[in-house]
């Protein structure tokens, strides 16, 4: 008894050590974000910000706040568009057995394989003609292509699990397909909506390819571009760069703390079957 308890603690220690190694870059980012300019190029570097400073964060508030706002708006827009497009599609594919549904699912799967840089080039050509370059709606649409195929997959999978009797009962009560979808299926799929929204937001928030090709130089820059230009313009103030990085990571941290099981479900959804 005693032995086995010791062994579990031994494993916990190893686990803590491995996690520490894995998360060291994250720690380093936080550490550098608090480091004073004059300590930045010290050798060896301080492992802990003994003379911590908030200059970096003050710079973030002064310069990067509008970009954070833009990213937030684009992220929320992407979430709305993604859910609005994929929830009905998931319902149809899962419950209404459309002719040609298999082909559509296959196309969605194939769409996920297309490298973002290729999509970006196509979007650039189109947006140039439509005058949508450097606009928020343009980025919302482009970013949603990162999430829609995945979202349809999640919704289809989730809604397949809703018992057919429930839908039949709704039908007997005189509800049409639209009514059934809105009042029965959608409320029951709350968890799928959460999972999809999380990923759509996170991907849109983190997007760099579309931002750099479609929004470069414009007034509405997302935060990823803000950081990128920051690095390009001054590679001296690394505390400010890292402070921006810390702030840009906050959504990921919040999501991990509040909704870890949705994330794990999302990661495994596409890949694993048993």
């Amino acid at each position, binding site marked *: 008894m005693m032995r086995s308890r010791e062994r579990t603690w031994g494993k*916990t220690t190893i686990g803590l050590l491995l996690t520490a190694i894995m998360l060291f870059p994250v720690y380093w980012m936080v550490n550098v974000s608090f480091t004073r300019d004059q300590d*930045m190029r010290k050798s060896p*570097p301080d492992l802990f910000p003994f003379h911590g400073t908030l200059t970096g964060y003050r710079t973030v508030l002064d310069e990067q706040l509008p970009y954070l706002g833009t990213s937030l708006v684009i992220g929320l827009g992407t979430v709305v568009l993604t859910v609005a497009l994929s929830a009905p599609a998931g319902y*149809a594919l899962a419950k209404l057995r459309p002719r040609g549904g298999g082909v559509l699912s296959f196309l969605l799967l194939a769409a996920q394989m297309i490298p973002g*840089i290729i*999509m970006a080039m196509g979007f650039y050509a189109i947006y140039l003609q439509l005058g949508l370059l450097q606009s928020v709606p343009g980025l919302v649409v482009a970013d949603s292509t990162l999430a829609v195929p995945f979202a349809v997959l999640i919704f289809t999978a989730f809604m397949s699990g809703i018992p057919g009797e429930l839908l039949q009962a709704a039908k007997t009560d005189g509800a049409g397909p639209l009514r059934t979808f809105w009042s029965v299926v959608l409320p029951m799929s709350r968890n799928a909506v959460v999972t999809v929204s999380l990923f759509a937001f996170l991907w849109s928030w983190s997007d760099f390819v579309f931002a750099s090709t479609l929004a470069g130089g414009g007034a509405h820059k997302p935060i990823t571009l803000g950081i990128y230009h920051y690095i390009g313009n001054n590679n001296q103030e690394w505390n400010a760069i*890292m402070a921006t990085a810390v702030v840009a990571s906050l959504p990921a941290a919040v999501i991990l703390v509040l909704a870890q099981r949705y994330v794990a479900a999302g*990661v495994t959804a596409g890949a694993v079957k048993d």
Partner: protein
Amino acid sequence: MSHATHVPHRRTVSDPRAAPAAPPRARRRPGSQQWAAWAFLTPVTLYLALFYAYPLYRNLDLSLRNYTVRSFVRGDAPFTGLANYRTVLDDPTFAPALVHTVVFTAVCLFFQYAIGLALAVFFNQHFRLSATLRALFLVPWLLPLIVSASTWSWMLNSDSGVVNSALHAVGIDPVNWLTSPSWSLTSVIIANIWIGVPFNLVVLYSGLQSIPAGLYEAAALDGAGAWRRFWSITFPLLRPVSAITLLLGLVYTLKVFDIIWIMTRGGPADSSTTFATWSYQLGFGNLLPAFGPGAAVGNLLVVAALVFGLVYVRAQRKQALT
């Protein structure tokens, strides 16, 4: 607040394509239901056509014409057939870009998978805090790529990076990680492995969950050691999940652009250029954009990704049957 419905059931998540076909075939599909079904599918179908098919078509069109900035805006570029592809194939960057793409993809896949599997087996032992620590391992995967890439850039900085100062502490000379042509590819590979491990860990871990514990107990009774149990039970039974993980990883790694571009811009002297960064470099990285050749490189990448994507779909289907 029932926990049973929170996470989509894994069995149902597995194969969306099977879902429409799952109910008995014999039941006829009423016409009105067909109308309703396609009414629900119309938005996403239009969306696919407008925002996937059309950009892809435009990209193909770009690669088949001789575009300049002027004709790009006016849209009257002359059709030149495969000239852009010939330009790309004859370009001195082609061979190194191909080699770097293959090396980058292969090395990243191998280490992401090996480290992910080792960690998955380790975390599968259910010790104290294992669930929490496993969740923390997701962090690198959730961070925006620009954040990871710029953090790694600073850590690998030649003069003030923490990596070189750690090497110095054990008596190794500083390495010019990002500024020396012989190290730049290694540096971006290291950063990308770090980002990819969590995905492999989570997927392989959930694969491990489905291996019955009884098998291990029986093997342990027969005197098989931990090493033996891994190679004769875990590894063979995990093969289908491994195949899917590796194929997905392959498709994702082929498209990696952000990390390389932010850390090295494919340089110095093209020493870390892959097809993805080369395509961007041609189309957007120079003062005089070469949209045609850029699109041509991109299309080569699409073909590669789609070939492996088809292999993935086939593998998944095969697995669904067994």
